[in-house]
């Protein structure tokens, strides 16, 4: 068993096509809440571009339904728009648990200064095995987050 996101599908398909697997949602925690992670990459348009309309039209074309389905087929990720959901599930019914997770999934925080805090969190977790205190670690992460985005 491994806890992974839908981004794993593409590499499984490409590098390990003979591995058999099924996808399942994570079980609910003690309080009955379910949790998972979702994130997306983005298209950026330079603020100083000479042709903003064409750029916008291009991004719209790339995020349209059939393009997203093509992406899903090509890279193994689930589509990034709701309107593609039905078509995607029809083609890949076995990936339904990933799609269901979107309802209660949390996104990655994208505020400025967050990278430092998460890097520091990772670094502190590396010291957990050699005498790190979990409460102190979480407290410092909370403090750093408050400092970074204001709370």
């Amino acid at each position: 068993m491994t806890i992974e996101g839908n981004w794993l599908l593409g590499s499984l398909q490409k590098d390990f096509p003979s591995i058999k697997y099924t996808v399942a949602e994570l079980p609910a925690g003690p309080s009955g809440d379910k949790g998972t992670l979702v994130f997306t990459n983005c298209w950026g348009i330079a603020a100083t571009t000479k042709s903003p309309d064409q750029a916008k039209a291009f991004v719209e074309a790339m995020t349209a339904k059939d393009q997203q389905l093509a992406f899903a087929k090509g890279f193994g990720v689930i589509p990034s728009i709701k309107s593609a959901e039905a078509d995607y599930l029809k083609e890949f019914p076995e990936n339904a648990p990933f799609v269901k997770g979107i309802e209660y999934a949390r996104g990655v925080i994208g505020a400025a200064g967050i990278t430092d805090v998460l890097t520091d969190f990772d670094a502190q977790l590396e010291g957990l095995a050699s005498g790190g205190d979990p409460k102190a670690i979480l407290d410092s992460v909370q403090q750093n987050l408050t400092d970074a985005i204001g709370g």
Partner: protein
Amino acid sequence: MSVIGTGGVEQSVADIERAEQPAPPPSKASRGRSKNRDALAGWLFITPAVLVIVIFVLLPVISALWVSLSDWTGKGSPLKAGFTGLDNYQALLTKPGLAQRDLATSLRNNLYYVVLVVPLQTILALLLATTLNRRRLRGKGFFRSAFYFPSVTSSVAISIVFLFLFNASGVVNAILAWFGINGPNWFADPRGVGHILLGLVGVDTDAPPEWLTSHEFLGISWWQWWAGPSVAMCAIIALAIWTTSGTFMLLFLAALQDIPADVEEASMVDGATTWQRFRAVTPPALKPTLFLVLTLGLIGTWQVFDAVYIMSQGAPAKTTLTPAYLSYQTSFLNGKWGQGAAIAFILFAIIVIFSLFQRFVMRDRAKLPRRRRIATWEGK
């Protein structure tokens, strides 16, 4: 035994040469004109070098200084960025927070790195040089190339080889296993050697003493300052000593070969043993080189970047983070260009302070006033 400062000798020799030249008696006006022309020609000759230095060294330094005082985001011209005064420096030095703790951690790591690498590489270089300097040694050329080889090899290649050597199941641990030692997983071990040593003498490292954890400096506790280099950092230290001692060996070797054979022979006639000669005859002649080696070593070790970048990127648990890498990470990866530049200037200040301190420690104590020294030489 008295040693005449080499600077004094050179100067007085120059004086003598000047005195020996027949002095032409030109008129005052023509001398002034030729002097001007000489100065002009001099400036003309150094112009290309000055231009290159101004464009590629001086201007970048000034603009980095400006960036360290601004809120430049890396987009557009830095000159259009807003001036924020000492904000970037305050975030690093006086304001408690993550930036300050990261800087303190990186300074701690690098301090232990410097304290271990500089003396060890200097001693190793001196030992290699004295070994090669013996007159009857077979294969001298071979050993000289072999010892120098790590210095001319690409640091990327060496770093990757070291990653394999210090792998959990790598060569180093295999050799340790011969002696029944269960070697650590080098690059994943954030434990500090200072803490391990304290643990050996009976200090509980899971619950360190109160007086060490309750005091702090620059945002991290005394206990963390005491951590010493982590096990991962020790592997990088070994790499640094191995690669740089070859270069410094060459410098020492050149200095050793400059010692006139008759000085050595005279001391042998006086009955000095090998050890006495090594202690009393060689060091005075090596002092300028030793000064150079220590200065270059100090500067180089405070700026360590390539090995960290390739081998660990600061991991595990930020114990191999160094100011140079932190500066890179802050500006190039996190886009805080002002803060990254400020770290670079703090590092610059530290290097200057260390170099001045080292110059003060190694100053020539028995220095005669310059005039008198020349006078005695000429009066001979």
